[in-house]
């Protein structure tokens, strides 16, 4: 059975959203997704999946707070404690069972509500071996960036090129919070934070919500939808222990991609895939992820970004949405936003940033510092 995306709803991503509470943010994205799919959630949806982490929300048992703002009261709902792309994988599997025809996936960020965001992220460090040391949690990213740059002989200039590209791409995305005409020199000269990571290498927090509506091919036909197909999806977690994980490659992304490519029958990702939206919440992550996804050879992503290959008009466009550097870090909504963006491109609905002739795109997520978890989805245009 094929599973497709038949509705896309996103709010704008913004540094703060004082006029809405988090439920209203979800209500807006859901209203947009249901209007896009031309469905009534009270009648047409069989299952609702939200993706959230209680600590980011600021209250416990998030799934109890879900149903009303999604049109899901007294209907099957559940919460995946992970990135939105992991929720997408769950919805895909629910539909594959044949028990569910139409499923909704939601993920959001109301990071502006969190007064002590650094402290919340720090809570994810091992409480016995790592947290008592008193390091900022992004020290983990600094160490990984150092290992990646040295292990692949990638120049720090490549990180600056990622920053300049994605911030500029953000200018062409009306939903992006942090689009800016930043050039590589500015990025190279921004304040040092976690060497080799500088201030502009780090994505800034944003609020926002993404809702996608999924349907089986049978249900899509009944609803007269023109779906973007989920051709393959996969996910994986490396050891959570900082000490025993791979510090150079994103092994979680490679394993997740292998799973997604196998389902999608993608044998040569670098040629079978037209463009990618990958996690770039630190600039080095974009390059590391591209290599782990088999979209660049080890150590080549840096030279390719410097050559302009990953520009919107380059040989292999990467993060044309602006990525997290351009749009903002929307935490658990990050991967779902990228899947939505790939789907918009494949539908030809990406506005001024529309790519020509794209048929297959890949969206990839990472669960942010200090995790080693990721998911990958291969999406394809119809029929």
């Amino acid at each position, binding site marked *: 059975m094929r599973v497709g995306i038949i509705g896309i709803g996103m709010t704008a991503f913004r540094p703060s959203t004082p006029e809405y509470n988090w439920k209203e943010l979800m209500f807006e994205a859901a209203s947009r997704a249901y209007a896009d799919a031309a469905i009534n959630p009270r009648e047409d949806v069989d299952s609702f999946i939200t993706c959230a982490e209680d600590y980011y929300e600021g209250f416990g048992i998030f799934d109890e707070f879900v149903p009303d703002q999604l049109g899901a009261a007294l209907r099957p709902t559940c919460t995946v404690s992970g990135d939105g792309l992991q929720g997408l994988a769950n919805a895909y599997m629910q539909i594959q069972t044949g028990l569910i025809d139409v499923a909704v996936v939601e993920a959001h960020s109301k990071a502006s509500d969190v007064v002590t965001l650094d402290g919340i992220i720090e809570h994810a460090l091992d409480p016995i071996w790592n947290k008592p040391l008193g390091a900022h949690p992004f020290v983990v990213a600094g160490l990984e960036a150092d290992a990646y740059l040295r292990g692949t002989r990638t120049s720090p200039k490549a990180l600056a090129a990622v920053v300049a590209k994605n911030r500029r791409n953000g200018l062409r995305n009306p939903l992006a919070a942090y689009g800016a005409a930043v050039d590589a020199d500015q990025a190279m000269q921004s304040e040092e*934070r976690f060497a080799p990571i500088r201030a502009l290498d780090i994505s800034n927090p944003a609020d926002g919500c993404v809702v996608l509506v999924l349907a089986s091919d049978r249900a899509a036909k009944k609803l007269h939808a023109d779906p973007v197909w989920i051709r393959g999806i996969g996910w994986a977690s490396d050891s959570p222990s900082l*000490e025993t994980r791979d510090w150079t490659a994103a092994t979680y992304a490679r394993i997740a991609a292998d799973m997604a490519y196998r389902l999608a029958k993608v044998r040569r990702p670098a040629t079978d895939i037209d463009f990618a939206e990958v996690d770039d919440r630190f600039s080095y992550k974009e390059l590391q992820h591209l290599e782990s996804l088999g979209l660049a050879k080890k150590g080549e992503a840096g030279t390719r970004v410097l050559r302009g290959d990953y520009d919107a008009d380059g040989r292999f466009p990467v993060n044309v949405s602006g990525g997290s550097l351009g749009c903002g870090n929307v935490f658990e909504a990050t991967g779902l936003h990228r899947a939505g963006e790939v789907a918009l491109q494949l539908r030809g609905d990406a506005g001024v940033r529309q790519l020509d002739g794209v048929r297959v795109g890949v969206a990839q997520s990472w669960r942010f510092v200090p995790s080693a978890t990721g998911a990958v989805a291969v999406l394809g245009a119809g029929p």
Partner: protein
Amino acid sequence: MTFLDRTTDARKFRHWEGDVEADYIYTSGVAGERFFVALRDEGRMLASRCTACKLDYLPPRMFCEDCFAELTEYVDVPRTGRVAAVTVAHVDRTGAKLSHPQVWAFVTFEGIRGGLLHRLLVAPKQARAGLSVQARLKSRDGRTGTIVDIEGFEPVRSRF
């Protein structure tokens, strides 16, 4: 208020300032206890051994990641390790700017799966991967059986 009529002045909105009371004790566990007691009492660092996979884990744990066996043997970690990755932090744990940047390293040891994340006790300019280092411990009286009984790692001084 609707989608068509959005107020953008944050001061017009009511909000409630809340906090989450969340205090814990984290038990070190069987393997952690072995490590921290040996560190405190004898100044030794222990790894747990998987005899099936021929792997020694640091931090020690009571199960093997690869074969899922229960681990009961412990071995000494070599005294000298190597800096595998290094970073210089210019902000503290809360994000506030530090007047003196802190150097952090991931230190690995020959023949050991894993390693330790800790302070690297050198000036930022001297921080580099590949350095040979040893743990500097607090004095016996100051040690309480936690990871901060190690003050950090410092370069091994040449004996010549």
